[in-house]
């Protein structure tokens, strides 16, 4: 008898048997920073359709979740900002795509709540705006709060910098963003890492996502790590 392993050969193998049409997927990243490149490509190649995708952004035309939009596999997006994607705009205006906007912090907290077993929370964010429409409201000490509910997904796709075979993850710089919460909110969380290492190689005090949240993990390959806005400063002349 062999011990259970979380390590899969590649992105395709890691998604095998857990995908179905119409399912809900969480995908980590902010813009193109910290997105699960290998897993998104494998999700596209799987041909699964009618997806609800929860992700802060929707990628750009040729990269990130833009790949799944182009192949029309997404039926609904739950996001806070989708400004960088022309194909998204086209499908939305044509009525081919549903869209639910959440304030960014509300989206982050809904995912955190979902993963932590919390039904919902009251927040001032969005009170008195379109976001509040149809939601329960409470006034406490003169401030209006609206009820926002927790979010979970059938599958969460996560990108981390380092991970071990137990699924412990460490993120790097601002590539962390939505990944840690989404890792907790997927019924099956699949992580791809730039460096897959053996137990003992990561300092337990430095782990951002404990392995209990990660069911499957792969060593990612061929990272592009595209930059949306390359801004630089001149070296001051000597």
């Amino acid at each position, binding site marked *: 008898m062999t011990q259970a392993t979380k390590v899969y050969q590649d992105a395709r193998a890691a998604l095998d048997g857990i995908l179905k049409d119409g399912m809900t997927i969480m995908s980590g990243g902010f813009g193109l920073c910290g997105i699960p490149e290998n897993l998104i490509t494998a999700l596209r190649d799987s041909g699964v359709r009618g997806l609800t995708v929860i992700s802060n952004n929707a990628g750009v035309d040729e990269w990130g979740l833009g790949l799944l939009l182009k192949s029309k596999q997404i039926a609904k997006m739950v996001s806070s900002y989708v400004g960088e994607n022309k194909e998204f705009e086209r499908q939305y205006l044509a009525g081919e795509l549903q869209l639910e906007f959440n304030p960014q912090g509300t989206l*982050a907290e809904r995912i955190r709540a979902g993963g932590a077993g919390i039904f919902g929370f009251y927040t001032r964010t969005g009170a008195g705006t379109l976001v509040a429409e149809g939601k329960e409201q409470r006034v406490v000490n003169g401030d209006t709060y609206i009820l926002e509910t927790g979010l979970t997904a059938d599958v969460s796709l996560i990108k981390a910098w380092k991970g071990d075979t137990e699924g412990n993850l460490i993120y790097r710089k601002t590539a962390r963003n939505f990944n840690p919460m989404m890792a907790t909110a997927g019924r099956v969380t699949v992580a791809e890492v730039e460096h897959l290492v053996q137990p003992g190689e990561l300092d337990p005090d430095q782990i951002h996502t404990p392995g209990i949240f990660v069911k499957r993990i792969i060593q990612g390959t061929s990272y592009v790590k595209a930059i949306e806005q390359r*801004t630089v400063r001149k070296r001051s002349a000597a």
Partner: protein
Amino acid sequence: MAWTRDQLAQRAARELRDGFYVNLGIGIPTLVANYIPSNLKVVLQSENGMLGMGPFPYEGEEDPDLINAGKQTITQLPISSYFSSSDSFGMIRGGHIDLSILGAMEVAENGDLANWMVPGKVVKGMGGAMDLVAGVKKVVVVMEHTSKDGSPKFKPRCELPLTGANVVDMVITDLAVFARPDRKSQFRLIELASGVTADEVRSKTSAAYLAT
């Protein structure tokens, strides 16, 4: 003479205080970072998960894992820290950020703010703006005094969908500065751009406000 974009940013920078944690929006607010007085310690927060935002990197030193909320490549500082989006908005919503400087399409005389959508036009999303105005201690708006067709942007009430209700503490335009001591008070005209008269401001503003 109306203030230029850089002069607007310079004026907004005068709202910075020593020890402040500050979130700057996209556009003119981003320029405020260029005018932080060197005698003040000001820490910039980027809502995608960083405190202690540094300047743009030197060419060739861009790191795709290190961007600001405008998706621009940036650098870290010795004081920097990184955290998740939920921690980031915890500090925003929880009132730990001292000052938010952001742009606007409309501000109402009661402090309502509209800066995220125009009905009938493509909507890109509110991003973190609603969370920022709901949670940050002081909200400063930087905007052109009038829209391109000359109509006032500081008005009796917002016609566009709101980003937040009664959330603005100060309005800095290219013509004037309006401020109020708390969110129960009316705005007062407190400053004019050089060469701009109070009468000119009055004629280009439909919001009610107190005279200087």
